[in-house]
């Protein structure tokens, strides 16, 4: 029953996508707006197909229907409900199912959002591209990645999910968030292709889809941060980023997507960099497909990789197709569609955004090169192998990171068009002083190492610069409230407006990034690892923290059996690292326990349990400022949400700074421009934000 239902859902989605493609093609080629308008109804059908298939799979998982191969391999009778639900995306075929569902959601959302313009050729082309991507992924589910295949003989009990995937509830959030992010980049890509095909690159399609891109980017950020947090909480080695190929696969689209989010502001403001932005969008989407390929094809060994199957060549072929179409379109039309102007001066916000793009693209290139280089090397020197790991990435990326911190500090104060050293010196004096003070303070406090010191100093500089921008914007909001006649108290409250809007949300995001950078620098430069051997009742010290072995405990539940050690850290709370065995498997999995505080984390694991009574060996990792990473991640998300809230309805074309007193025009200090006569007020520009 579940298998049939699932197959029907997948088939419905696939057929709807195919028919939608045909209808739209006919409508576009034969110029029938009726066809274009009809074409949008297939997106809800695709979504319906996806929902039916997901419902079937969840029903099979929750009721432990072992007649499906997927359920027999990834579920067992002793699996708790939560991990039965998450079992849907624990293995390859189910993850494609989740991908298909999210594609359906985005396609339906896009069609609904642009429903009033359905007979616009550009929207139709974009919908067509979405349908093609949907058809591909649903088609995968009909062939090599079929989640609803049947077993030949129904087993009594299934194998259960991978032990590492039933250790922590984060598995409920991390993959869906990640997929919401990765899949979300399909929409801007669809519009980019449509722009190129129709030649209408000078209209603000990139700006209109900016919110979509930001949405996808936010979820991708959440997904990556959650992944790092999960790695930290579960895997037991005390780190959060191993430059694993699968981790890199999610990082590359994020980097290029961040570059795009910045340079699209240049396009909205000055109309420049049109073709470059289109290239960035195409690159982002291509990298998501490449990442999917790397994760699922098995060509690269990884702890996260799904099992191999014949899906690899198909994904690689799709990657080639996406690249051929996207880059081919740029080759064909790119030169004709270039912006009519250029950047006036390198010392301007445009220049800073260009430099930002350069650094991010270089960053993504390094990650890509490092990930695929072992394969390339092996192809050229058959037999010989080389490994590319954390030392390589760290060495090359630290200078880039420092450069990005510097840009983050300077750019918020840089005006558009052209600036002078005078103006910049004046604006950045206080933030720079704060940065230098922080460096001096760290040196006095005994911190050594040029890289951490630079990171702390530049981070403080960047945070202070972002703070300055926020202060100015809050003050501007206050002033305009006063100018409109509000009392001082109400005007203070109205200062909240200084935090919303594109630029201000962006400043909050920058502060979050600074926190992450500082946390990374501190944890990697000053982390210490060691082992402590303790008999029950003994105490030991490591890196300035005392660990007391209070006792042991054995916990038995239907799903797992774990041996726990009770450790008291610094005379305070008790933490319980454990070694557990799940379900029917005999493989034991270690679970760490973490004493987190704002200043440092003490990370405890059980390394070995003696067979008979004797001392236990515990691993201890002490890393400063790890919590700043997670707080920074939260701030980034908060900032993105703030940036999506419409600001004071300013146009992105307004200048950087609020008018200075001397040159204030003789009009009312209300800074809101009056609406133009006849302006359509029901079509607020999507990209308008606080242009402070």
């Amino acid at each position, binding site marked *: 029953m579940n298998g049939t239902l699932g197959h029907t859902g997948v088939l419905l989605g696939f057929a709807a996508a195919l028919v939608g493609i045909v209808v739209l093609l006919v409508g576009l080629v034969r110029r029938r707006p009726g066809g274009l308008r009809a074409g949008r109804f297939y997106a809800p059908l695709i979504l319906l197909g996806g929902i039916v298939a997901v419902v079937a799979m969840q029903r099979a998982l929750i009721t432990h229907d072992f007649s499906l191969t997927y359920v027999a391999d990834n579920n067992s009778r002793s699996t708790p409900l939560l991990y039965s639900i998450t079992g849907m995306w624990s293995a390859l075929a189910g993850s494609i199912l989740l991908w298909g569902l999210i594609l359906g959601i985005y396609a339906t959302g896009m069609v609904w959002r642009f429903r009033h313009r359905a007979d616009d050729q550009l929207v139709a082309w974009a919908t067509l591209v979405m349908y093609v991507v949907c058809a591909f992924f649903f088609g995968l589910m009909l062939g090599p990645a079929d989640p609803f295949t049947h077993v030949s003989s129904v087993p009594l009990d299934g194998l259960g999910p991978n032990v590492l995937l039933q250790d922590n509830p984060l598995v409920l959030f991390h993959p869906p968030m990640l997929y919401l992010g990765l899949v979300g980049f399909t929409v801007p890509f669809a519009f980019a292709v449509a722009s190129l095909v129709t030649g209408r690159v000078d209209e603000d399609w990139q700006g209109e889809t900016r919110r979509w891109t930001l949405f996808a980017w936010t979820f991708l950020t959440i997904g990556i941060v959650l992944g790092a947090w999960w790695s930290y909480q579960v895997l037991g080695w005390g780190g959060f980023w191993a430059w694993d190929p699968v981790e890199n696969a999610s990082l590359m689209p994020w980097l290029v997507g961040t570059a795009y989010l910045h340079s699209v502001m240049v396009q909205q403001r000055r109309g420049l960099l049109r073709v470059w932005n289109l290239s960035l969008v195409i690159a982002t989407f291509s990298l998501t497909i490449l990442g999917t390929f790397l994760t699922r094809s098995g060509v*690269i060994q990884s702890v996260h990789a799904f099992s191999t199957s014949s899906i690899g060549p198909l994904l690689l072929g799709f990657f*080639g197709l996406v*690249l051929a179409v996207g880059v*081919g379109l740029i080759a064909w039309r790119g*030169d004709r569609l270039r912006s009519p102007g250029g950047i006036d001066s390198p010392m301007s916000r445009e220049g800073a955004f260009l430099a930002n793009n350069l650094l991010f693209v270089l960053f993504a290139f390094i990650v890509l090169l490092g990930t695929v280089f072992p*394969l390339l090397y*092996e192809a050229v020197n058959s037999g*010989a192998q080389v490994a590319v790991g954390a030392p390589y990435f760290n060495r090359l990326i630290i200078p880039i990171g420092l450069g990005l911190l510097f840009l983050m500090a300077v750019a918020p104060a840089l005006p558009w068009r052209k600036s002078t050293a005078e103006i910049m010196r004046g604006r950045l004096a206080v933030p720079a002083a704060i940065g230098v003070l922080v460096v001096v303070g760290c040196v006095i406090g005994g911190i050594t190492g040029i890289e951490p010191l630079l990171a702390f100093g530049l981070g403080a500089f960047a945070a202070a610069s972002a703070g300055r921008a926020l202060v100015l914007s809050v003050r501007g909001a206050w002033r305009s409230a006063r100018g409109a006649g509000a009392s001082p108290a109400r005007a203070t409250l109205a200062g909240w407006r200084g935090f919303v809007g594109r630029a201000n949300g962006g400043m909050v995001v920058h502060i979050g990034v600074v926190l992450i950078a500082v946390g990374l620098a501190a944890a990697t430069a000053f982390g210490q690892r060691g082992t402590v051997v303790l008999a029950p009742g003994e105490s030991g010290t490591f890196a300035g923290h005392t660990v007391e072995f209070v006792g042991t405990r054995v916990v038995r539940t239907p799903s797992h059996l774990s041996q726990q050690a009770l450790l008291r850290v610094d005379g305070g709370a008790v933490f319980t690292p454990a070694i557990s065995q799940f379900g029917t498997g005999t493989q034991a999995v270690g679970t760490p326990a973490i004493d987190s505080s704002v200043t440092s984390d003490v990370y405890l694991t059980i390394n070995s349990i003696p067979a008979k009574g004797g001392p236990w060996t515990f691993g201890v990792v002490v890393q400063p400022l790890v919590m700043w990473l997670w707080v920074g991640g939260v701030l980034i998300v908060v900032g993105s949400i703030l940036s999506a809230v419409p600001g004071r309805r300013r146009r992105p074309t307004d200048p950087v700074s609020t008018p200075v007193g001397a040159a204030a025009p003789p009009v009312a200090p209300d800074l809101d421009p009056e609406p133009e006569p006849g302006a359509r007020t029901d079509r607020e520009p999507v990209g308008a934000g606080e242009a402070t």
Partner: protein
Amino acid sequence: MTGVLPPDTATAPPTTRPARRRHTARWVAVTVLVVAAGLIAVLATRQPAAVSEVQSPLVGTQAPPVRGLTVDGRAFALARPPGTFVVLNFFAPWCEPCQAEGPELVHFAFEHQQAGDAKMVSVVFDDSASDARSYQATLGATWPTLADPQGTIALSYGVRAPPSTFLIAPDGRVVAYIVAPVTAADLDGLIARARATGA
């Protein structure tokens, strides 16, 4: 806009140049496509990582010494040169492919025990001697099994994961390295090949 300009510039003819269009985007795009095609070609021809061969730098060199206590507590040292073919097998009781390969090793050992031309030696990888002893007993393995509690023998042979099997020629050279479960037929074939190439 035009109304505010000085009159003479307004009447000057616009400067015309022959239309020259830069093709930067096209060239960059073509380069990207070419590079991407190369990358796709490489990726398409890769074997799954789990299957691909791993070379050992020891093949062709003298085998590092194998000595230590067996799981029964006796001292054992492999003679250098050993004088016969030696199959050195790294295993672990918790490793499933090792469990699959166990009966094959027993078969091989029994076969060559009579002929006397090949010996089996096992080394425990990352497990206790007692677990290994009971595992070998259940399997019916009668050849020497070294305990290697510090993992030094595994390190000297560059063993990453069990099962790993080395074939050592009578003159002490390492002639083959298999990092997957072996069958008796595999081992026989390797011995035959080593003999043919003049071991």
